[in-house]
């Protein structure tokens, strides 16, 4: 419309006063005419806007580009439990709880929890990149309005009592059977606007405890396994492929590649060949893998097995890398509880023996501190519990050393 009104080159002859007056009127009429015909023409066209969200021909998520970074989605069927995404996340949006097994009666790793807090996620995509199987991906879902903010947490393991078993990718496979992108997250989103469950009360938490302990039955004892593996490794010291297999057993087996080798085979082979002596590269295995590998490596280097614990109990005590496991005088009456019980159990027994007044006379802030000092930090003085008196002293000596307290 504009070209008719303003873009005309100015005529060479300046119009007289009356000419200018008439021209103004003419211009006004013309611009009204053109302008109004343009606006009216839009009245009779289809609007270009779409009526989001419910009157669109196809869902909006299907119209946005495929590489759009929407809500994250994890296909638990091909998740190897390597936790690479959790480590990659710069703001701790992903929370994975791992339940360890012995690898025989129960899987080595299981996932009790795989939560992604979409309310916190900044959609950087750093978690997607290290995933070895492509289990974690950005979907094109983006509609995140909820009544309760806590509902924005996507739980990919719906029930912690039914932990998810990790996927074992076939060696050398390049592609993995992933479910259609968005299917899982969409199903989780459906439940979004349910009110959040209230925080559990103390009673409920107490009631839940035994269940949790039951689920943890058959959990692996890294120290015992470490010694077993170390013995086998020592036997197969010269047979490199066999040694490699033994070493790989100590690893998490997720082939995540976090160690700098392409997969678990690469890392274990490097150790077996003597090229790599670092025991702490297996990130998914965590402290347990590190302890086991350390035991094996030390054994291989020294050529002697770590000391056997005194008791022939099936749950042997950790021998390597645990300060409180220093050999204690064996007694005639049989081994003291300190040598037969795992530390966590021992802690409970010791705490039970205390007076429980939290007086602080022992120079620890409370009974809990003193117990931890005895059990974990190698505190040798067992006679500090003043409120408990002789009684507690006797109990502690019995538990820790298996002897009677020395006469005062």
């Amino acid at each position, binding site marked *: 419309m504009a070209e008719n009104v303003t873009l005309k080159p100015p005529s060479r002859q300046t119009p007289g006063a009356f000419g200018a*007056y008439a021209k*103004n009127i003419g211009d006004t009429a013309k611009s*009204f005419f053109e302008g109004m*015909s343009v606006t009216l*023409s*839009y*009245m*009779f066209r289809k*609007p270009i806007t779409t009526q989001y969200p419910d009157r669109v021909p196809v869902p909006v998520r299907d119209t946005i580009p495929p590489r759009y970074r929407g809500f994250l989605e994890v296909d638990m069927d091909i998740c190897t439990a390597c936790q690479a995404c959790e480590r990659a996340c710069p703001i701790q949006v992903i929370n994975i709880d791992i339940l360890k097994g012995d690898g025989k009666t129960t899987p080595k790793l299981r996932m009790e929890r795989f939560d992604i807090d979409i309310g916190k996620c900044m959609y950087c995509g750093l978690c997607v990149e290290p995933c070895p199987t492509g289990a974690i991906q950005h979907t094109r879902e983006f509609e995140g309005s909820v009544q309760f903010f806590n509902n924005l947490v996507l739980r990919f393991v719906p029930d912690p009592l039914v932990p998810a078993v990790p996927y074992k990718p076939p060696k050398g496979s390049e592609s993995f059977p992933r479910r259609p992108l968005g299917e899982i997250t969409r199903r989780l989103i459906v439940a979004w606007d349910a009110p959040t469950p209230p925080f559990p009360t103390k009673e409920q938490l107490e009631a839940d405890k035994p269940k949790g302990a039951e689920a943890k039955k058959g959990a692996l004892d890294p120290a015992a396994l470490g010694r077993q593996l170390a013995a086998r490794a020592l036997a197969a010291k010269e047979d490199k492929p066999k040694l490699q297999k033994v070493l790989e057993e100590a690893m998490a087996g997720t082939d995540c590649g976090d160690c700098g080798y392409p997969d678990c085979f690469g890392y274990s082979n490097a150790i077996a060949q003597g090229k790599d002596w670092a025991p702490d590269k297996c990130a998914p295995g965590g402290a347990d893998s590190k302890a086991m590998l350390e035991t094996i490596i030390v054994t291989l280097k020294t050529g002697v097995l770590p000391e056997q614990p005194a008791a022939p109990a099936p749950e042997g005590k950790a021998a390597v890398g645990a300060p409180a496991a220093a050999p204690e005088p064996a007694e005639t009456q049989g081994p003291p509880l300190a040598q037969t019980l795992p530390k966590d159990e021992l802690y409970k027994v010791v705490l039970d023996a205390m007076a429980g007044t939290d007086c602080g006379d022992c120079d620890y802030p409370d009974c809990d501190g003193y117990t931890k000092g005895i059990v974990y930090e190698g505190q040798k003085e067992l006679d500090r519990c003043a409120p408990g008196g002789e009684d507690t002293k006797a109990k502690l000596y019995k538990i820790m050393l298996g002897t009677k307290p020395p006469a005062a």
Partner: protein
Amino acid sequence: MQGFLDNLIRHFGHDPATWPWTQFVYLGGMALFAFAVINFAAITAGIFSWAERRVAARMQSRVGPNRVGPGGFLQWVADAVKLLTKEDLVPAEADKILFRAAPYFMMVGFACVFVALPFSHRLVIADMNIGIFFIIAVTALIVVGIIMSGWSSNSKWSLFGAIRSAAQIISYEIPGGIALMIPVMLAGTLSTQGIIRAQGGLPWQWFVFDNPAAFVAFVIYFISALAEGNRTPFDLPEAESELVSGYNTEYSGMRFSYFFLVEWGNMWVMSALATTMFLGGWQIPGVSAATLDAATGGTAVALELLSLAIFVGKTLFWVFVVMWLRWTLPRIRVDQMMNMCWKYLVPMSFAAVAFVAVWMLVVHAVPALGLVMRAIMFVLGVAFTVFFVYRTAQNIRDTGDKFDFTSNW
């Protein structure tokens, strides 16, 4: 309406001239009609607020409010409820009495217009013999409300808006009033019903096509009415970019909505007045006013409704034009506004009056000349409309778009 009440009294067996209760019946009737008219004005203003948003949206290639009720029609109810429940805020430094009273002045000035505004052949509150004069006079009352609100708000923006509005309304009152004198001259009466009766049902019988000066007067009247109603392109008193919201900046809640009620209701007033004065009002094509007067019984009711429909239809068309103009034209500057009034509209309206005066003498001497002129004007009008439709269709075609009025409402 006085006749209607007189008939009612006679129906109950009294003589309105001598019955002592006549005045009380009149009073009750007045209250009833006032109630009806104010509600009519409020509801039409509400509906216009929705219609304007839908029209604006379509013209901007959007959809507009379409969620509340069918096609979003009940949006205005939702808005009214929202405004009713909002806090009625009075600024601490404001002149509290005037601040509170100003919206009512606006409302009064606006509602009084309906007294003389016809709706159909019989439906008019008071067919005064000074109808047009009364309408011009009470419309000026709105400016009192605007100045009161602007001054009492004790805010610079409000005051600027009010002063601009006063300058604008007073300026445009002159060309607007003179332009309205042309139908008065042609009809020989100030009564709104009389002016409609002087026209006919067919377009070439309307005053707008009577002669070129009458057409110019119509355009001048329409521009002045836009300016007096503070409509774009003359919405300087409420220029958001400079004055936030002008004279109603400090208002909130229901008091604020009164201002907008008046603004949207004014669209009906200016369009109904244009219809009355220039476009044949409620005249039914092919049916003379005398036939309407003589009709009785069912025919009378049917003709009455038909005349009402014709009047409302014409008025709504011009309401649409007002909205259409708003979404077409940018706001003009203050100096441009003043230029336009004093340099163009005022001289032209005087010239038009002079031309019509001479023209009436000419037609009186040679009546055939009047018919020829009406025919030429009508043909030009039709040609203009056809060309306009063609241009609009071309605008759609040129962009590769196609005509699609029905989808995506």
